[in-house]
């Protein structure tokens, strides 16, 4: 039996409960998953601003937090915290290991996901109506292929204590250690499907231990403020139990597991990774004790012949600004403010960039802005905030959005307050496919 923990499910996930896992989880492997489509883009943005950056901004704190306990407990770390700069991430980890007196710690830098050179003007973007890269009209800042277990396994075989990757498929971070320990063949599709299920369930951290789940009165979660990260106990055949530390908050139940089972899944019969076409359609989920859920029944078919690439484009700048209104007639005043912004921010001021304005507290979430704006039922919130957003290559246009929104304090409707505005660099992403054979992952071992 093999014990795997997940110490982060996204870039900015909590640190404390990960340290708890490293110290008390009796883990064989501790995985930190930190890349999403959004944070991969941030990695490119950061590296562009400073070639020494582009890895996960919390890497230093995470490594300082867990490396000592991991060495003491014989726990190996696998993480994609390299994001857009694996080399710098590995070098920093070695420096931290030396600082901590962990002489001889082996840190593997897994590279080869940067396939920018393989992306040309004619590359098709399958998520963008099959348009060509040059039709996007923006400069490519980087392209990363989703590597799989083929990239991670050599690092484990070479004895790495810490494996640092860039873009790899999230479940592969877990599947590789399971394969390495259990000696599964690379074409044992059924077992690879089972290990991929474990990885898929674990990769979002607390999303399976009660996070992203609580709905007061319907789905109550005990101790959510001190929620623990998940642990998977995996058998040689790939059956697994998902659980957590007994003294951590949160919960593992068939319901938390079922919600995560289909998270970001489309067809449950064909969950595509670089490693296998996994089939989750016959997965069984059963209680196996307090905060213990057994999962079985996953299977798989042959791996896809193409690999997915996330292509990042320079999106210029993203600007966001807002002002709040309260009390009687607040919605009408906020709508007036929105109309003023629309009248004043025309093509001469902000070019052709689309301007988005929401009424937060009325109708802002997820594109509902234009649906309920005249709904009388929503006309009396205690307070409401207008929020304006745009994306443009022209920083001056973005600054005009902020200026005009701030001007509403004196020049707009009565009682407007609480202006905030910010401009951040933006990377827009789309997806392409490349042949598996074109990708050549590599491992470089650094020793502390």
């Amino acid at each position: 039996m093999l014990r795997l923990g997940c110490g982060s499910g996204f870039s900015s996930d909590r640190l404390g409960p990960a340290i708890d896992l490293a110290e008390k989880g009796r883990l064989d492997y501790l995985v930190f998953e930190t890349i999403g489509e959004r944070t991969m883009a941030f990695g490119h943005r950061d590296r562009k601003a400073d070639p020494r950056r582009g890895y996960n901004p919390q890497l230093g704190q995470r490594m300082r937090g867990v490396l000592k306990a991991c060495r003491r407990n014989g726990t190996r770390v696998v993480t994609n915290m390299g994001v857009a700069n694996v080399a710098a991430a590995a070098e920093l980890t070695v420096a931290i290991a030396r600082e901590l007196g962990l002489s001889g710690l082996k840190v593997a830098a897994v590279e080869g996901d940067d396939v920018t050179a393989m992306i040309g003007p004619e590359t098709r973007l399958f998520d963008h109506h099959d348009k060509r890269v040059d039709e996007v009209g923006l400069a490519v800042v980087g392209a990363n292929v989703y590597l799989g277990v083929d990239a991670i396994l050599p690092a484990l075989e070479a004895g790495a204590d810490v494996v640092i990757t860039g873009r790899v498929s999230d479940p592969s971070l877990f599947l590789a250690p399971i394969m390495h320990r259990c000696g599964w063949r690379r074409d044992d599709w059924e077992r690879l499907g089972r290990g991929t299920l474990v990885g898929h369930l674990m990769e979002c951290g607390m999303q399976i231990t009660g996070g992203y789940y609580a709905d007061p009165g319907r789905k109550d979660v005990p101790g959510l403020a001190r929620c623990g990260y998940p642990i998977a106990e995996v058998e040689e055949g790939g059956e697994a139990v998902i659980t957590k530390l007994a003294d951590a908050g949160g919960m593992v139940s068939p319901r938390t597991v079922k919600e995560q089972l289909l998270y970001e899944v489309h067809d449950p019969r064909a969950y595509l990774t670089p490693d296998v076409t996994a089939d989750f359609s016959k997965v069984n989920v059963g209680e196996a004790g307090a905060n213990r859920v057994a999962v079985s029944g996953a299977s798989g078919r042959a791996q896809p012949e193409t690999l997915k690439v996330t292509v990042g484009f320079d999106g210029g700048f993203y600007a966001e600004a807002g002002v709040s209104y309260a009390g009687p007639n607040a919605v009408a005043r906020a709508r007036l403010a929105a109309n003023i912004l629309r009248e004043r921010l025309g093509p001469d001021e902000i070019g052709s960039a689309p301007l988005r304005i929401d009424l937060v507290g009325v109708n802002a979430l997820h594109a509902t802005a234009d649906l309920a704006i005249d709904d009388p039922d929503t006309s009396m919130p205690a307070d409401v905030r207008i929020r304006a957003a745009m994306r443009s290559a022209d920083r001056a246009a973005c600054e005009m959005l902020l200026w005009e929104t701030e001007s509403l304090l004196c020049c707009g409707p009565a009682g407007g307050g609480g202006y905030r505005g910010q401009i951040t660099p933006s990377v827009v992403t789309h997806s392409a496919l490349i042949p598996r054979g074109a990708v050549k992952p590599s491992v470089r071992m650094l020793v502390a």
Partner: protein
Amino acid sequence: MSRKTRKIPLHEIAHARAGDKGNTSNVSVWAYDPGDYPLIKAQLTADRLKAAFPGLIKGRVDRYELDHLHGLNFVLADALEGGVNTSLGLDSHGKSWSFLVLGLEIEVPDNRA
């Protein structure tokens, strides 16, 4: 004999989770009580979802069924204003999609407990 029915929010009998990949959202919907699953399956069709959010879902809606776990998975194409790195919306991941779907109504027998 006609049976009387009443409408209740899906939120009373099901839970849901939303995820995103590019410009596609998926929402899984799970019956709390297996006994309610057939009602949900019969009424919460792909067409119903597509029709309920005409301004939000620009593409097609596909539904996958996990009968043994009493869950449905809806895949909403072109439903995230371009996706997390393109959308100008506050919730650019579309995390809130799950509760938009749970706000839909389901017709249940009047005498349902």
